[in-house]
């Protein structure tokens, strides 16, 4: 998609977001109100300026790609996003180590990594290091492991 158009949409979204926060900030009592109102007000002005920049560029330059970062594969990004959300949900239900042991190879293989053996070895080694650091050394109370009771 056109980069300038994309940025314009983002600017509109950001403006709306800060306008909402501005409204919220106006309701605060006394001294607590000054800074939030000032900051969100400034942010609204800045995001409007940003939007204006994009609009001008859009009218002038049409669809010039500019010097932005390299384009990427939207499908791959979608896979990453879904994997991250499922992983985070999994931590709460399956436990941290279980989810990690599943997520790590699953994500790399679904993105085209083909060496199963290395993936599994790395996963297990990594999980062992994490276990040593977080459970044994730092004794962080991670969410309980439901599948591998013996690890938790």
């Amino acid at each position: 998609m056109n980069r300038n158009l994309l940025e314009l949409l983002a600017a509109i979204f950001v403006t709306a977001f800060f306008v909402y926060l501005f409204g919220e900030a106006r309701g605060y009592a006394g001294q607590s109100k000054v800074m939030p109102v000032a900051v969100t007000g400034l942010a609204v002005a800045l995001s409007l300026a940003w939007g204006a920049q994009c609009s001008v560029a859009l009218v002038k330059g049409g669809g010039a790609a500019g010097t932005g970062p390299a384009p990427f594969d939207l499908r791959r990004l979608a896979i990453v996003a879904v994997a991250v959300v499922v992983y985070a949900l999994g931590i709460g239900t399956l436990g941290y180590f279980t989810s990690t042991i599943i997520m790590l190879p699953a994500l790399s293989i679904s993105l085209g990594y083909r060496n199963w053996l290395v993936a599994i070895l790395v996963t297990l080694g990594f999980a062992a290091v994490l276990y040593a650091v977080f459970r044994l050394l730092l004794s962080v109370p991670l969410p309980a492991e439901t599948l591998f009771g013996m690890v938790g």
Partner: protein
Amino acid sequence: MQFKTLREDFMKKHLTRIAAATLGIFSATAALAEYPERPITMIVAYSAGGGTDVAARTLVPYLEKYLGNDASIVVSNKPGAGGEVGFTTLAHAKADGYTIGFINAPNILTIPIQRKARYTMEDIQPVANVVYDPGAFGILPSAGIENLDQLIAYAKENPGKVTYGTAGAGSDDHLAVLSLEREHGVKFRHVPFNGNADVRAALLGGHIKMASMNVTEMVSDSEEGTVIVLGQMSKERWEGAANIPTFREQGYDIVMGANRSLGAPAGIPAEALEKLSAATEKAMNDPAFLAGAKDQGLALYYMNAGDFTVSLQSLNEGYKALWAEQPWIAQ
């Protein structure tokens, strides 16, 4: 007295449970008699490494020792929102005696008063009081004020000129000054900071006139002579600061301070409650624990579940009355 009824209540429950067990009706009760049979989680509503956390972790080994049964207690830090995150977790935990926690008054009392909290005091069963750290006022020697009478006189001459630092709006330090203002018709100027360390630094640097803190935090400054402590807000002088007079001795009826205590979700089995309360008492009489507490400068003050419940209730009434008259945070 409420304490007595509570105690009788425990006894009654206890007896019925024993009776039930002998009759073999509740098989679970027999297991409960061996409380604790699995690890207990202790929720600390403040960060690891903080004052409450270190005190809790110092107590834990002794609590384990006197609970017997190879008890094991795992400390779990749930910091956030001035303790509300941890208190809420505790209040909503399963009331089986395997989740206990440190509760800190006045925070646990004032939070539901000053905002829509996610727990109420009805959800919490006080177990035992461990630490009571009386409030205290500190002032630089150069100010030429040595006792409360002089402070009040000075404040009356210079209304609203005396700046005092606290660890934040609604803290026990803040409430203490508010009560003094209310009862003696004086007006100070409140300067909230982000914690006691900042208040102390601001006092020592001469940026504020007076610090409202807890006595344990000022006792070494007082011994060094760098700060004059005007008084401590306890009923009797804390033994760690025996030369600092109480407010009451000086004719100011203010008793306020910070409690660090054990609590549990309401409705935990009576046996668990009794065992925990008793084990805490024994732990707090253990010479090794006492030595550790002295090193850390903890102001120990044991109260059993009954006494402590009564004390919390009366504190709660006091804060509610104060709030109704003079809300301490902006609405």
